[in-house]
């Protein structure tokens, strides 16, 4: 009886899905970053390289399929995380402590995953409206290679100081989310081993600093140089 709904409704099930969607998003970020890094090439090469990358990402069938998995993962992760986990967890403690020294037993990021996640979600919506929506639903000028000139749109966006600032702050938020989240996802899946956990922790911390930092360098570079 307990088993039937165990993988859907139990508290642990919510965590397994949180972890799997979270790790899938981590994997996606690497692919996304690899593409974005073409923006750091010389201005002459960056345009064609980036436009070819966006063209590839939107037409290659395998990537198209995984993009639907990605939209689903983001929505699922956000709904499961905010509406279910964070809300239910608030309800589990109806009266708060008058004095609570949580900083003595846990790191800040781990206690604020819901807030950090919400900020990332707002960023994702803004980001999608700015780039994805324009690409899909508006007419974009063509580049010399006859590909839609996403490079032009990206450069125009990052010349706006406020947009670059929002982007950089969001990457810092993402870094905090992953500082706890990466490691946490493995623990959720039951992977905790004296041999491998230090490696997972190291990779997680490296990932959560380096990936958001590389993402953030790109708009700063464009803002300052182009």
């Amino acid at each position, binding site marked *: 009886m307990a088993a039937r709904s165990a993988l859907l409704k139990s508290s642990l099930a919510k965590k397994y899905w949180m972890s799997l969607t979270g790790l899938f998003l981590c994997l996606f970020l690497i692919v996304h970053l690899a593409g974005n890094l073409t923006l750091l090439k010389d201005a002459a090469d960056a345009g064609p390289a980036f436009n070819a990358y966006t063209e590839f990402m939107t037409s290659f069938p395998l990537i198209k399929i995984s993009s639907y998995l990605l939209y689903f993962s983001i929505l699922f992760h956000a709904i499961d995380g905010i509406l279910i*986990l964070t809300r239910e967890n608030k309800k589990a403690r109806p009266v708060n402590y008058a004095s609570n020294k949580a900083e*003595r037993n846990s790191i800040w990021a781990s206690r604020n995953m819901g807030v950090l996640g919400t900020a990332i979600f707002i960023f994702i919506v803004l980001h999608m409206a700015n780039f994805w929506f324009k690409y899909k639903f508006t007419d974009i000028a063509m580049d010399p290679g006859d590909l839609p000139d996403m490079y032009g749109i990206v450069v125009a966006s990052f010349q706006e100081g406020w947009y670059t600032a929002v982007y950089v702050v969001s990457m810092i938020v993402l870094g905090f989310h992953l500082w706890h989240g990466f490691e946490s996802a493995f623990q959720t899946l039951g992977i905790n081993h004296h041999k491998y956990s230090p490696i997972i922790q190291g990779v997680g911390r490296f990932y959560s600093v380096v990936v958001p930092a590389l993402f953030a360098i790109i708009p700063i570079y464009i803002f300052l140089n182009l």
Partner: protein
Amino acid sequence: MMNLTLKIWRQADAKSQGKMETFKVTEISEHMSFLEMLDVLNEQLINEGKDPVAFDHDCREGICGACSLYINGQPHGPDRAITTCQLHMRTFKDGDTIYIEPWRAKAFPVIKDLVVDRTAFDRIMQSGGYVSVNTSGNTIDANAIPIPKEDADNAFDAATCIGCGACVAACKNASAMLFVSAKVSQLALLPQGKVERQDRVLNMVEQMDKEGFGNCTNTGACSIECPKEISLENIARLNREYLMASLTK
């Protein structure tokens, strides 16, 4: 000797609205345990014809798990790896203000003052069911079954959980995962407990959810505050056991 200000949660019964009240105690020796300090306060209150502060305690030597106070923002006070009854007044200084609150969780409703109802833990243990060990006269000596030393040690460590509930109290989600994982681990690691391991983990988690504990987000606060230093490896084991059981059962 020290003089202290105590801010204590007072609540007449489960239904009443409670509030923090301030008390003064004087001439407290640093050799006293925290509970002895509260005994002094209660004697004072009784002499004044007032209602003494209700708090749970039994063994007063760190083995029963009855004592359960949230002291200055931490379960069992600022020291590590001890229960409230093992906390000594030398941890505090003359003139200190000390906050004393009950465990806060929907699943642990306040009965009176600092006493909470922890029968949710008992119901979780009951839902775990029995262990198939023959006790009908031809009982096999447990030592006759070879068990790897590491498994025996891990099972023993898990079994040191005294069910105090500090893990729930410390957790921002009021999650009972550390307690449940200790109870699941102590049996799942040993051959005698392996027979019912799948039903046990499914039923205990189901009961845990029913009781209204929150969902674990791996903050690790539980293990840090646990007087028996129950390791997070147990929670990972619970996650594994549950995943396997729900996939195959």
